[in-house]
């Protein structure tokens, strides 16, 4: 039983890790704490619904559609909303992303109705038995794809020249400008990546559960994940996501289903009081 819970936690945690990674990329690049990341997940789920159920695209094309559309969404949001607020106080930026999430939610509910939509894809369903542990193929696929995306991003970030320029921009905006880097382009790229990673998470969560705006709550678990893992740390985001996934499943199983949220937020409070820079982060207490 324990292994069962652990594995589901790990699978879900991989998806959380992906969403948290997207969040961290945005944060590292533009210093924006994107409260709308949860809605990006929802957008991904609904993009999947649009591509598969409405436009009836073949699955491979649907994936391309989702990736491109979510990337464009990220870029658009940076250009119209984030860039104008450069240098503004933190509450303004936080409130902007919160207002954005509300606007997106309202738009989606107007376009698709407040009820959720079921999402069916050619992804394998069914169950695999490993000893006494049942692992659904969907969970497994979600985990594998999430890890592939995270690894892919890691390789891109570390080894390509564009990745280097992104790291440079995140390190010091002004130094990057002085060195000839088009920092605006890097920021837009960061938002495109952040949005796309969340959308992939939404694709899986939409199928694991249902494509609805309620997924936002799950997407928002990326926030405690990045804090626990360490705010500007990429490995931290991934580990944080995994931990949140595992803890959530454990709490839901061994305490009560409704308690999982609260356990995570209490943990968040504890970390903030005891070790605010998280597991992998660096010691800079808060941003005044």
């Amino acid at each position: 039983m324990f292994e069962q819970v652990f594995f589901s936690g790990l699978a879900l945690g991989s998806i959380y890790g992906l969403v948290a990674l997207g969040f961290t990329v945005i944060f590292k690049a533009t210093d924006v704490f994107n409260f709308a990341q949860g809605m990006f997940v929802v957008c991904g789920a609904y993009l999947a619904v649009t591509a598969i159920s409405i436009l009836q695209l073949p699955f491979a094309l649907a994936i391309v559609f989702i990736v491109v559309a979510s990337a464009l969404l990220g870029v658009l949001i940076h250009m119209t909303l984030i860039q104008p607020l450069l240098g503004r106080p933190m509450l303004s930026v936080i409130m902007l992303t919160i207002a954005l999430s509300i606007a997106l939610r309202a738009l989606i509910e107007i376009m698709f109705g407040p009820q959720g939509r079921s999402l069916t894809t050619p992804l394998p369903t069914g169950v695999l038995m490993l000893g006494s542990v049942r692992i659904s193929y969907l969970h497994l696929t979600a985990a594998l794809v999430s890890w592939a995306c995270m690894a892919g991003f890691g390789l891109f970030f570390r080894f390509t020249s564009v990745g280097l320029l992104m790291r440079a921009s995140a390190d010091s905006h002004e130094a990057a400008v002085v060195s000839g880097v088009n920092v605006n382009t890097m920021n837009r790229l960061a938002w495109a990546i952040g949005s796309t990673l969340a959308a992939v998470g939404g694709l899986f969560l939409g199928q694991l559960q249902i494509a609805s705006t309620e997924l936002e709550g799950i997407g928002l678990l990326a926030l405690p994940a990045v804090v626990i893992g360490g705010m500007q740390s990429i490995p931290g985001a991934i580990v944080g996501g995994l931990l949140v996934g595992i803890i959530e499943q454990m709490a839901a199983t061994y305490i009560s289903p409704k308690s999982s949220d609260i356990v995570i937020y209490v943990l968040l409070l504890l970390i903030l009081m005891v070790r605010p820079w998280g597991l992998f982060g660096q010691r800079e207490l808060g941003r005044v």
Partner: protein
Amino acid sequence: MNTTTYSTATPKLGAWVWLLCWTSALVYLPTLLTERALFGMALSNTQLLNLGLTQINLMLISMLGALSLNYLTGCAGLISIGHAAFFATGAMAAAVFDTQLGWPFPCVLLACAVAGALVGTLAGLPSLRVRGLYFVLSTLAVHYVVTYVFLEYQFKFFDVVGIPYATPRIGDIEINTPVRWYAFLLPLVILVYLGLKASLQSREGLAMRAMRDHELAATSVGVDVRILRLKAFGLSSAIASVAGALFAYYLSNITSEAFNINFAIQFIAMIIIGGMGSLPGSLVGAAIWLLLPSIIAGLSPQSSEDAGFMGKLLVEHRAQLVQLIFSVMVIVFLIFAPSGVAGLGRSLKNRLDAWRQGL
């Protein structure tokens, strides 16, 4: 020239006239809304912006929320997105002391204020350890913790339908009609407003604003920033707690769903649109939040059948449309008018003064 005497004499007279107009308007308002007529001349629903005394009363309660949040965030510089938690605290305290223990209403309110202050001070404790973004996250966590406690409380002592609240009474008078609620709430809001204004102009209030603007500088002048922060949190939460209790009494039944994160966000939206750090701005923000759904309801046709696209939208997705417009308003204000309506009002006033001086 007479200009100097002119400009010093009229402000006093002008202020008194202003005050008189407002007082008479506010006193007449309940009559206007209940009889739906202005001095005997009947007014249609649309002309009254679809407002009833019920909405006005809710607006007054939310003004308390906006004022307390603006005091905390705009004046003391402490960003909190967990404000709904203090409303929940008040509602819960009211349930304990009134519904369960049967205390008299005024005592219940006092107890709610104390409970709110306590929870607020606790919620402010992380500010001693972390700052900025981390602190905002701690307020989010506090929100989830408190609302969870409320949920558990509701399920343990009551049931899933919600917690009932008796009609409040002061002495022999029951507050059971909208007019009576109005008569109770309006002076309360004015009192809280004047109290907060006085607090901001006191020595501690000035220190608080110094702390908001430059913490390091404030510390170097000997201001104990940490104690001030906790005090601000305590006061703000006490007011919000009372507002939460009144909210519960007003609706006479509350479930934990009422205090979700959306509830907290509404207040932040109010103070952004109204103007952060501006007490009058809080009132304006709350008023706009009230008016918007009513206006939209007024604009929507009765049925969606022969209406156009907009009409269909207004009828079938009214709630979402309100959310959409409200959030877009916040975004527009954030980008183009960061000081809110209060800021716009100030620059308008400056321009008027400059124009008047040039005459």
